């Protein structure tokens, strides 16, 4: 028998930083799955769609987007309607930025390792000029923009190429491999670019040595692969490389819209068990859901509001005595046997993990659930997703006698919030609240925040089940 390894106390784990960005990509909206199928059927609708796209100023001024980058807490958003309400188009906030499309084209080229994106010389030059003036300029590989500049009409004429915008074309990698088609590749490249931008903001804001991050977990909505392994991955490592994390490796967690919460839990477990010291969780945005509910928006004379791609990054490490703890002993999971009705799902995610540790539901200050922006979903008839979730959570609190039935509305108002996230579900599924939660649990007056995510597994036709996971964040005891 060899010498025993010295026993070490396992650390508490904290989330020390979180950032999120948006790329405003109205020119990409017609390449979303729904518009791509519907617009070619009717030129008149395509014309209305194009006329209803928002300017950068309107998208940046949009109040939910300002909540996304941290300039306003969701509970402090003005009364709706938010759309066409004016306001200041503030580009940056404490959590990140809203990048204009012309600049984002350059970022796409900067993270394109295979020369698949072609830009017109004008588009490349405009993007290079803008990115050179960006606060993170030194992190961008601007030489790739020069390499991307080409005769854009010739690129558009290449087999199976996709005309993204007048100045940008996405090539396919192999004309006969669906997984390497231009549509799939731009989905993946956009996710890589947005996640990379969020991670670069995180590195800048946290000031940590990029070489100190051991592992990056991707939790986005893309499927990277080829015909022989269609969802092969690995976005985590691709983003690690693009952001200069030379000592990191990575992998991806897939779980439909719920993926980021299990990714956070797995990352915390890796740190808490001593496998790694620092782990980042990143999520990018793909084109698929752009313009998804355009028919509802056009029928209500609204602009196309699904015109942004989100990216997020979070950093987990051992207790620093300051940052909010992630409570690995308060993780909720939706078991196979749990049942699929909404009260059963919420019982598993919002009640059981708290009850197991003797925490009353009123001892959680904020519940972050699926925070889809209702202004986007309601015109299409999909209702107010967060409001539905909060009603169920509050009803369960009443059933548990943590509150009186008469206190349900107050519970929702105090501990819930309006949805403010773009409808890319993995970003809406409580992840969008993470930077707000860190603020609330450090400089704010909250002590506990529950992150709660649900995923529609049944959409992939391998199970009739859904899934979900929750985890409690808590103010650091030392702070």
């Amino acid at each position, binding site marked *: 028998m060899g010498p025993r390894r010295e026993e070490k106390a396992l650390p508490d784990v904290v989330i020390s930083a979180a950032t999120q960005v948006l790329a405003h990509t109205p020119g990409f909206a017609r390449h979303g799955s729904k518009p791509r199928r519907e617009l070619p059927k009717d030129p008149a609708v395509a014309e209305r769609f194009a006329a209803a796209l928002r300017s950068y100023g309107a998208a940046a001024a949009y109040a939910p987007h300002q909540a996304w980058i941290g300039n306003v807490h969701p509970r402090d958003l003005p009364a709706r309607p938010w759309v066409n309400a004016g306001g200041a188009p503030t580009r940056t906030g404490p959590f990140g930025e809203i990048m204009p499309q012309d600049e984002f084209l350059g970022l796409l080229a900067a993270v394109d390792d295979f020369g698949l994106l072609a830009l017109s010389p004008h588009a490349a030059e405009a993007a290079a000029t803008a990115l050179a003036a960006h606060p993170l300029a030194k992190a961008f590989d601007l030489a790739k923009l020069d390499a991307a500049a080409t005769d854009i009409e010739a690129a558009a004429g290449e087999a199976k190429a996709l005309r993204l915008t007048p100045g940008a074309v996405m090539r396919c990698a192999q004309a006969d491999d669906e997984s390497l088609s231009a549509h799939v590749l731009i989905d993946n490249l956009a996710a890589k670019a947005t996640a990379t931008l969020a991670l670069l903001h995180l590195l800048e804001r946290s000031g940590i040595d990029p070489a100190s991050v051991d592992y990056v977990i991707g939790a986005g909505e893309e499927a990277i692969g080829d015909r022989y392994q269609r969802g092969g991955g690995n976005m985590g490592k691709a983003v690690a490389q693009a952001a200069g994390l030379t000592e990191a490796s990575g992998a991806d967690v897939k779980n439909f819209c719920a993926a980021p919460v299990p990714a956070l839990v797995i990352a915390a477990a890796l740190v808490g068990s001593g496998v790694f010291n620092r782990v980042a969780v990143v999520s990018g945005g793909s084109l698929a859901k752009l313009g998804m509910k355009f028919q509802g928006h056009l029928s209500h004379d609204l602009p196309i509001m699904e015109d942004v791609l989100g990216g997020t990054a979070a950093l987990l490490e051992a207790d620093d005595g300051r940052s909010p703890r992630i409570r690995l002993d308060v993780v909720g999971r939706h078991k196979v046997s749990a049942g699929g009705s909404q009260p059963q799902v919420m019982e598993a995610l919002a009640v059981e993990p708290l009850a197991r540790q003797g925490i009353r539901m009123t001892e959680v200050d904020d519940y972050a659930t699926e925070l889809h922006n209702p202004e986007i979903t309601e015109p299409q008839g999909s209702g107010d997703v967060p409001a*539905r979730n909060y009603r169920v959570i509050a009803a369960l609190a009443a059933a548990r006698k943590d509150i009186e039935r008469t206190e349900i509305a107050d519970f929702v108002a105090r501990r819930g919030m309006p949805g403010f996230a773009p409808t890319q579900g993995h970003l809406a599924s409580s992840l969008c609240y993470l930077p707000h939660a860190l603020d609330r649990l450090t400089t704010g007056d909250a002590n506990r925040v529950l992150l709660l995510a649900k995923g*529609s597994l049944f959409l992939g036709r391998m199970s009739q089940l859904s899934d979900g996971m929750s985890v409690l964040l808590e103010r650091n005891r030392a702070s």
Partner: protein
Amino acid sequence: MLQGKKVIAIGERDGISGPAIAACAKAAGADVVFVATECFV
């Protein structure tokens, strides 16, 4: 009402799932020919 009828059961992720609708329809004597749950957000 559903006895002997063919039923397509489409559930919604925030509401009633497809299998739950199908179970009810079957109990009422329907022939459930398709079951799915969809996400509309």
